[in-house]
């Protein structure tokens, strides 16, 4: 299992590194057109070849990593930022009105797949990377609320929480000072899972035109543009897809590895 943790960490770091380095340096300008150089197969000059406008695919992949990671990361932030407090609230008021409202609200959002949320937002405001973030972020809220509530509920029955109650701490303080630190492992693991799902979702949304718009580089849109050229130059479709698969694969391995490392009780089960 250690192997998967290390492989996952390496792949995740590679994606982060590509995104980070692209801020300072890319092998070519990812937006520079050069029709004379179009659809070149991979070579020493262009590691992953060029697309139908002669743009360097390696450079576009590096810049696209930035979009994917930024969208997925902010969407996880939205999900955690709103979902975790709601989940903690529901657990603190277990069986009460607030719990009921949060859980029914969760069920309601669960009925809207992120693609459907994106369709609604886009129909009203038009497509953009920001709308993709919003759609994936909203989708993440009930996920984190559920994990936080589940983790918190089992803690509320324990003696040290009872002791804190007897000492006069309120539900908010107990949630913040005692519950949250004890469910942070759960949240980190869920965070890596939602991060990887976010990258897949962003690619899908951009692919159908609901996400990042030109000139913002994006893996999903590269694939949409590659679709008509897949017979002429398969490399145009293969590399962006591989970038997505390897990043998501890495994040999933990392999530599994972290879960095993952070929670030995789960190790037997997995």
């Amino acid at each position, binding site marked *: 299992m250690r192997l998967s943790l290390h492989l996952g960490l390496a792949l995740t770091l590679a994606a982060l590194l590509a995104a980070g380095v692209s801020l300072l340096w890319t092998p070519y300008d990812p937006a520079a057109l050069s029709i004379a150089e179009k659809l070149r197969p991979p070579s020493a000059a262009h590691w992953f070849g060029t697309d139908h406008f002669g743009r360097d695919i390696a450079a576009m992949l590096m810049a696209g990593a930035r979009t994917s990671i930024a969208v997925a990361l902010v969407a996880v932030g939205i999900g955690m930022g709103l979902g975790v407090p709601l989940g903690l609230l529901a657990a603190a008021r277990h069986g009460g009105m607030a719990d009921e409202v949060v859980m*029914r609200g969760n*069920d*309601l959002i*669960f*009925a*809207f*797949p*992120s*693609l*459907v949320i994106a*369709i*609604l*937002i*886009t*129909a*009203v*405001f038009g497509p953009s990377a920001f709308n993709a973030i919003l759609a994936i972020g909203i989708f993440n809220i009930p996920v984190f609320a559920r994990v936080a509530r589940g983790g918190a509920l089992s803690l509320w029955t324990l003696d040290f929480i009872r002791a804190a109650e007897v000492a006069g701490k309120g539900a908010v303080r107990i949630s913040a000072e005692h519950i949250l630190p004890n469910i942070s492992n759960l949240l980190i693991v869920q965070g890596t899972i939602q991060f*990887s799902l976010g990258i*897949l979702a962003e*690619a*899908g949304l951009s*692919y*159908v*035109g609901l996400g990042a718009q030109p000139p913002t580089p994006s893996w*999903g849109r590269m*694939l949409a543009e*590659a*679709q008509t050229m*897949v*017979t002429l130059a*398969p490399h145009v*479709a*293969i590399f*962006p*897809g591989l970038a*997505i*698969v*390897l990043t*998501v*694969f890495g994040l*999933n*391995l990392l999530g*599994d590895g972290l879960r095993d490392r952070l929670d030995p009780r789960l190790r037997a*089960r*997995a």
Partner: protein
Amino acid sequence: MTRYLFRRTLSLALSLLAASLVIFLAIEIVPGDPASYMLGLNASPETVAALRDQLGLNAAPPARYLSWVGGMMRGDFGISYTYRVPVADLVAQRLQVSLPLALFALALSALVAFPAGLLAAARRGRATDTAIMGATQLGIALPNFWFAMLLVLVFALHWRIFPAGGFPGWDGGIGAGLAALTLPAIALALPQAAILARVLRSALIETEGQDYIRTARAKGLTRTQTLIRHALRNAMIPVLTILGMQFSFLLAGAIIIENVFYLPGLGRLIFQAITQRDLIVVESVVMILVFAVILVTFLVDLAYALVDPRLRRRA
């Protein structure tokens, strides 16, 4: 059981009501006047006024909401502005592609996941298990639309076994229709099968320490026999949950996959509606998708009660 059914049906109705409100309000916040938004910049005031009248926009929002919901209950989803035909007809026509596609994919996914999950659980910790789990880990990471492009490249363009896209309709025979849906269904099914196989495996392994499994083994059943006769039934609750959730992913996924294969399904309809700002179509198709998800969740809840009699009494 009747009480359980009644409570679940009530909550189904409430969920639908809440979802319809959310969708209605989302479309309500379109900046400016929906009629001029739909017609674009060059519309004359008369056409805008005529469309406003046709859409019933002159009524107050609560009245419009009630007439929208009331209409849907009678099967009247309004008239598409761009196609000039009832939305219900459009949807019925497109569902002939999208629904068989989603069901085909669901069947394929179960067909792959059950043997894989059972095998991995039976060979737990050995090479077969490791290989299956590694494959599922990759399967989960696969974007279905990219996988679809690779399938087209290999099975439609290189080997010419299946069509690369388009849909001949069901009139030309079931065979041609199914052939057109095969690659899309595989692309949709495999990533979902990977998730399902993992859930099934861990649910099966979870049952391993239970007394009834030990009893079954003690009376002489082999490990595989116990898995299939006793563990599988008890592992069905998490598996059903995931199957239900997967249906909504399959519907959403089908919308994307239809784009790869140029299939005239709900997905194509909704994307055309977005670009043409046909809000009536968007609103109704989204409601139908959400209705499908809520209905499947409801059916899964009922299935729990069938699988696990204890849940019937508790509710």
